[in-house]
């Protein structure tokens, strides 16, 4: 098999080394980091639980084969190098030597194979990604070869710790994964080890003294504090109890105030991999929202700049279409929907809308989303849409969207850097399946779009994909299957003495490896 080394690899490897080197030169060892974790995660076993807070904490306990920089270029982690065959079907990873699990057992290729199998059973995203894999082989203890059924463009981008964490075979093999007692004391290869979890209070991680990167990590301990009330979290930061507010841990309205405090640094970086994009699900099946002109009217009716400036304090960008601007193959060469109530009214008239009641489901994620829904409701009411807000909690929202019991519903989704991973699922008709809130919930069905997304995923190499995705984006924006709102930005607020926390595309989730505190 002919292989070639990706040029990007050299570049990134070099960069990574450089970053490491500078960090080493500057970083001061020691110290304790106090961060907020919100909400309290249900568990820390990353293979079993994948929600945001779990990723945030456990991303520092477990590791994936790769890490990604802000441009989503792969960097070595447990794999020190990798090659991709010319036909884009064979991926060979060389694993780092001398890596051990927190319990001292060596990390080998067998663990990678085991993790693949494990995650196929428990991790929906990994299951989808691994479905592209024909076979996994281990020529030796430190080499893993993935052979794909067909080329899959985004495959090199799926090895981040949250998407594919490495699970210790020696602990889980042959056990019932779900009830394994080790789930409460997660064992990974990462820079920090699980120490203590007082439910409702804090999670404590301690430095892994045998970490495979020399001189890392610099911090001795991390405390993740559980503070359920947003205002109390802001107070916790102000009073110096915590120094790190990961994105989303305080209400947006508090961000400007906290940012202005002395010695406080804010960054919007660290979300490139997720590139969260918000939109309104518009139920394409029934009611006024089944009408394309009505949906376009919704786009024109919304003052998204107001939402950005007032509700999100100017953070983020107004979305142009189905892909966030940080996603690969993004294009802004699409029809535009500026705030134009007059045009919205005209379109409503054309659509023959007679003032039927339209149910609006806000996202029950706190005050920001509530205010946003109120503003959108007002926008829609102003052009004559008869909106009634339906209040729910998270399970209610999940149920209603998953069961398609809504007219308009707020949501936001991660895009995982590639349209095939994070965008297609919302628009292809094969993803119209009741019971999940994250697939093609709006019920949009367009054979041409289905075909384009199918082609895009397996086209090789990249320029081919770019053309295909440009076409898709144009079609979708014209059809308005959902009403795109904003590319969200969740600022990470820290005291400035906390250095090098956000260095990768997943930010805080694996950032503590390099972080240090300036004393």
């Amino acid at each position: 098999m002919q292989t070639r080394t990706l040029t990007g690899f050299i570049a990134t490897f070099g960069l990574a080394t450089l970053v490491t080197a500078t960090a080493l030169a500057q970083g001061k060892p020691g110290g304790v980091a106090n961060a907020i974790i919100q909400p309290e995660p249900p568990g820390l076993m990353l293979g079993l639980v994948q929600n945001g807070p779990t990723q945030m904490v456990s991303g520092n306990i477990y590791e994936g084969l790769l890490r990604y920089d802000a441009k989503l270029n792969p960097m070595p982690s447990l794999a020190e190098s990798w090659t991709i065959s010319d036909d884009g079907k064979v991926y060979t990873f060389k694993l780092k030597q001398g890596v051990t699990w927190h319990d001292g057992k060596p990390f080998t290729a067998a663990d990678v194979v085991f993790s693949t199998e494990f995650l196929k059973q428990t991790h929906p995203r990994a299951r989808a990604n691994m479905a592209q894999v024909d076979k996994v082989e281990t020529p030796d203890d430190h080499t893993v070869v993935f052979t794909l059924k067909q080329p899959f463009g985004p495959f090199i981008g799926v090895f981040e710790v949250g998407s594919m964490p490495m699970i210790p075979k020696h602990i889980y093999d042959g056990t019932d994964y779900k009830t394994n007692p080790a789930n409460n004391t997660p064992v990974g290869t990462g820079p920090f080890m699980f120490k203590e979890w007082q439910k409702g209070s804090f999670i404590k991680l301690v430095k892994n003294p045998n970490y495979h990167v020399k001189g890392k990590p610099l911090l001795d301990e991390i405390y993740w504090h559980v503070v359920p009330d947003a205002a109390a979290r802001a107070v916790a930061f102000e009073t110096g109890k915590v120094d790190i507010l990961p994105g989303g841990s305080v209400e947006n309205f508090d961000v400007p105030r906290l940012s202005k405090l002395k010695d406080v640094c804010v960054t919007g970086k660290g979300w490139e991999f997720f590139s969260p994009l918000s939109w309104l699900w518009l139920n394409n099946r029934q009611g006024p929202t089944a009408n394309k002109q009505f949906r376009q009217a919704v786009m024109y009716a919304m003052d998204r700049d107001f939402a950005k400036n007032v509700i999100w304090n100017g953070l983020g960008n107004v979305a142009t279409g189905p892909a966030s601007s940080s996603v690969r193959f993004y294009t802004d060469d699409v029809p535009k929907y500026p705030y134009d109530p007059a045009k919205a009214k005209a379109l409503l008239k054309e659509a023959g809308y007679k003032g039927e009641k339209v149910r609006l489901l806000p996202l029950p994620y706190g005050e920001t989303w509530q205010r946003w829904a109120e503003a959108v409701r007002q926008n829609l009411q102003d052009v004559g849409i008869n909106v009634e807000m339906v209040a729910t909690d998270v399970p209610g929202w999940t149920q209603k969207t998953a069961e398609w019991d809504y007219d308009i519903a707020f949501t936001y989704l991660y895009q995982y850097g590639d349209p095939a991973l994070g965008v297609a699922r919302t628009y292809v008709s094969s993803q119209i399946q009741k019971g999940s809130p994250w697939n093609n919930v709006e019920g949009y069905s367009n054979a041409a779009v289905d075909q384009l997304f199918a082609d895009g995923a397996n086209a090789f190499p990249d320029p081919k994909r770019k053309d295909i995705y440009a076409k898709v984006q144009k079609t979708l924006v014209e059809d308005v299957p959902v009403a795109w709102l904003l590319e969200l930005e969740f600022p990470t607020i820290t005291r400035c003495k906390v250095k090098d926390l956000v260095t990768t595309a997943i930010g805080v989730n694996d950032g503590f490896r390099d972080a240090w505190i300036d004393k």
Partner: protein
Amino acid sequence: MSFIVQRLVKMVVVLLAIVVLNFFLIRAAPGDPALVMAGEAGASDEIFVAQLRERFGLDQPLPVQLALYVKGIATLDLGFSFRQQMPVADLIFSRLPATLLLTLSAFAISLALGVLFGSLAARRAGSWSDTLITVVALVFYATPLFWVALMAVLVFSVTMGWLPAFGYETVGAGLTGVARLSDIAQHLVLPATTLGLFFMATYARMTRASMLQVSRLDFVKTARAKGLGEGVIQRRHVLRNALLPVVTLAGLQAGTLVGGAVLTETVFAWPGIGRLMYEALLQRDYNLLLGIFVVSSAMVLIFNLVTDLIYRLVDPRIEIKA
């Protein structure tokens, strides 16, 4: 003793009824734990949700689920938390001490201050100071609790820096012994006072009304006719008798407090049971939620029993009346 046995039997019946009611109530809510977890995972497919449902036993018919749960309860097994991957009992009992500490302190504060204010107001009934005391006691009741809590944090933690704003103890300080106790006590001050002041009004009102009623009774006249000083009359004759209904109320409230401190626990990040309940509800963690209801209801029943026993000690007449 038959009294206690009888009460215990009644308690079991009530608890069982609570289990059954809540079992169905919770399941009537939209969404289930599998959906919630699927939702949180950010990506989901049918297999994932189905797997979760099977794992949680949600694929079984409801009566079977109920039977299994009741069977568990009968063996004092509160089941396994779907979400937190821990036995429900462990979760609850790790939180119970914090809740009891908070609520019992708040309870003591509210009772002490309430009785104090109530008796002061009663002795000056109809005067300006009566009105003033009544209004002051009511202010803390009438202001939304979370609002008072936030103000307290702003004033005493953020501005003055006197007291910690949240949590149960200083995390990571590694304190032991007396230092740890004093640390916890400092953390306790704000939440317990806020909660206590809220409940104070009820006791103040009750004490005042009760004292006014008692002070019209003949034996108070007898006490005066004896030539007792006003202080002794108020304390020994009026207050002691007036406290009987207050004891009853207190018993009812002390129990309810256990499950009712959701707001305070949320604002002060107090790792108690109320918050756990609320989170379990939002996550549709059926077993955990049911478990909390069972435990907090059991606490209510126990508190009521204790109150009744105390009442019997305090009021010698009960023996005949029962």
